[in-house]
């Protein structure tokens, strides 16, 4: 394979790492039955704060720590208002996402455009020499390696551990989890904050590595959080599929950049923005099988074609945890 393409694809894996974190974080939260809509603002605020912290203290780890704490605290607000105060998760999440975004731009003013620390690449000895795979997977930085580990661990946690099964349970049917001994609301708090912390890590991953620095409104981070939310749905609340969604999005973004010189007639903005509507379109494909009119339309088709289309739609179809967004009370 052409080395340029290979390096480009390696870049796609790297660029997707923060989105992987954010979308898997949201996956944990939503699996527990809570929707945290604050993702977009949280990423911006933690990106700014993580960058500022590292800049001031010259300590990268502290930057990530601050990012995670911000994410967890915002998530705590969502959890408190929806679980304890029984407020609308959508309204609270929406307000928080706007607030944290404005806060990021406002507080980040003094750090704008400054050159700060960034994560160094870390080539893995021996493995990096494997043809193709070496360039793709083993000449990355620690963030990318961590994102690979996160995918595997979260998949294992949700589907293979006792705790993970319980997590599925509290999002699916909290009453059934409750009779099995789960402290539903405590677990919901816990997973919302864990998910929030993962989302919060995505911020410094951008500002300390993928898009190093803080450039205020032109950082190009605004909107990523909404895409992460869409990817969570695209991925059917399944970490591996969610990660694939993140890679698809990063790939589309990269293609936009690569194709730009050969498509001079199309304004560059179109190619930059195209991945966003494209992701929404894929979402449509995933969920269209759930629509009643599709079922009706299918029923009118000739039998062989109907079977095939139905099968394809079923394979792509995802369904959310049944109690997503529904508060739990045991009386």
């Amino acid at each position, binding site marked *: 394979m052409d080395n340029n393409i290979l390096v480009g694809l390696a870049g796609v894996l790297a660029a997707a790492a923060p989105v992987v974190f954010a979308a898997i974080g949201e996956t944990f939260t939503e699996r527990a039955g809570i929707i945290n809509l604050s993702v977009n603002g949280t990423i911006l605020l933690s990106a700014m704060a993580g960058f500022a912290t590292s800049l001031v203290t010259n300590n990268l780890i502290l930057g990530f720590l601050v990012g995670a704490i911000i994410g967890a605290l915002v998530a705590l607000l969502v959890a408190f208002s929806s679980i304890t105060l029984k407020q609308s998760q959508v309204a609270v999440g929406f307000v928080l996402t706007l607030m944290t975004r404005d806060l990021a731009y406002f507080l980040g003013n003094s750090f704008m455009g400054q050159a700060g620390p960034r994560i160094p690449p870390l080539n893995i000895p021996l493995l990096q020499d494997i043809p193709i795979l070496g360039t793709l997977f083993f000449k990355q930085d620690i963030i990318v390696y961590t994102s690979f580990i996160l995918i595997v661990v979260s998949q294992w946690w949700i589907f293979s*551990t006792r705790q993970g099964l319980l997590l599925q349970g509290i999002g699916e049917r909290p009453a059934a989890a409750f009779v099995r001994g789960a402290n539903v609301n405590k677990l919901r708090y816990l997973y919302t904050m864990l998910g929030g912390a993962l989302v919060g890590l995505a911020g410094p991953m951008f500002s300390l590595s993928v898009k190093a620095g803080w450039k205020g409104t032109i950082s190009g981070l605004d909107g990523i959080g909404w895409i992460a939310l869409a990817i969570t749905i695209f991925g059917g609340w399944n970490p591996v599929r969610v990660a694939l969604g993140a890679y698809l999005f990063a790939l589309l973004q990269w293609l936009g950049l690569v194709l730009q010189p050969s498509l001079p007639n199309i304004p560059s903005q179109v190619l930059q923005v195209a991945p966003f509507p494209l992701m929404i379109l894929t979402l449509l494909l995933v969920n269209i099988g759930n629509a009643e009119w599709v*079922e009706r339309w299918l029923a009118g088709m000739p039998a062989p074609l109907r079977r095939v289309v139905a099968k394809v739609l079923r394979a792509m179809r995802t369904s959310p945890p049944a109690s997503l967004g529904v508060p739990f009370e045991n009386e």
Partner: protein
Amino acid sequence: MKVELQQIDKHFGSVHANDHITMTIPAGTIQGILGENGAGKSTLMKILSGFIQADSGVIKLDGKKVVIHTPDQAIHHGIGMLHQDPLDFPPMRVVDNLVVGSPGGLVPNKKEAIAALKKLQERFGFQIDPDAYVETLTVGERQQLEILRLLWLGARVLILDEPTTGISASQRLKLFDTLRKLAADGMTVIFVSHKLEEVEVLCHRIAVFQRGRMVGEAKPPYVTTKLVEMMFGKAITLDERAPCATCDPVLKVEHLEVEDTRLHICDINLEVCRGEVIGLAGMEGSGQRMFLRTLAGLTRPVGGKVIVHDKTLTGKTYASFRKAGVTYVPASRLEEGLISGLSLTEHFILAREQKGFIINRDAAVKETEENIDQFFIRGKPETHVEALSGGNQQRALLALQRQDVDVLLIEHPTRGLDIESSIWIWSKLKARCQLGATIVFISSDLEELLHYSDRILVFFGGKVSEPLDAGTTTVDQLGQLIGGLGMKS
């Protein structure tokens, strides 16, 4: 295990759901609990199993006082409860359902769980595939799974709240066998039901509840009329069946073909007369629900025709069917029929299409009050529907239906209702038939099917029987057809 309940008291707001109930159940007993809708049976069972807490009262197990705050603690003490609808996780596999909430390390040992499941299944003659998804099981199998899970966790007191609604006749016999075996092994079984004949054949003793109080106990031999009198304070009799005379077809189905992911049924033909009642029988998931939804326009058939009043409505939406006089009453009252969080008055406002833009609250409250009186709903206009007991939800649902319907499609019209309410609901339905309405209903209660239908269609394994004359069919014949015996291929 011997269970003693002493002076259990529970209020829900102004409702006195349990009024100082005291009862003792010796080990090895199957205790039946009877009572009208809203009598407080489920409340007491939920208190015993830790799902809710009593305001006051004492629970003793084998003479020792215990405090039960959660279902988890209840199962630690050996008390397991099977809820009215199985509390499990439909999209998960059977083994995963089994291990959720079981004690043990981080990664559950599924092999061990499967082995334990196999052993228990052999003991009771159940056949559930450990790798199947729970949503593909029948209600009866899900119930079996719950029983096995509770036994696996060490339950020695088993509470069953209306376990026989929604399961087939053969599954019911198997369930009863299982319960008898368990009792013979010294377990205590508490069996809540509205079906007198079941309680009578199964239970060693019966307690009767009325309006939150225990009003009497009985031991075999039982006298049915006495039990009914204890439950309702008066005698109740079934009214006679009155077949309709001439046929004036209202609803016609020609070569209908319906299909979903699991099932394909071809060539259903049926002509329903004005004033006729058609019962749809079959094990849960045999296609009767899909058929009924097709008659309502909620599902589009893949072939054939649905004709209402000489108008072909195939492929049209529910709105067109409604316009033609068809109404559909779903089984899942709280999911599809009623709206949680809205009061009775608000339901009537929605259902009755008031004139004008602004809601006339006073008129709505007045209408609601009238309906509450007319349908004997135990609740107030401002009561939220989810706080009504199951029987009262069903009454409310019926009260909400339009009066001017020609075709009434009903899923499980009396599921979970006490005998008085069932008879009462059917008297209302029959009165509508007298006025010319046609009813097609699904039921898993054979007696109900035979008593109230004029003709019955049996669904089994993707096939539909010819319409049977309900007057000349016996319970045994119908049970065999539902089980697939004698169904022509």
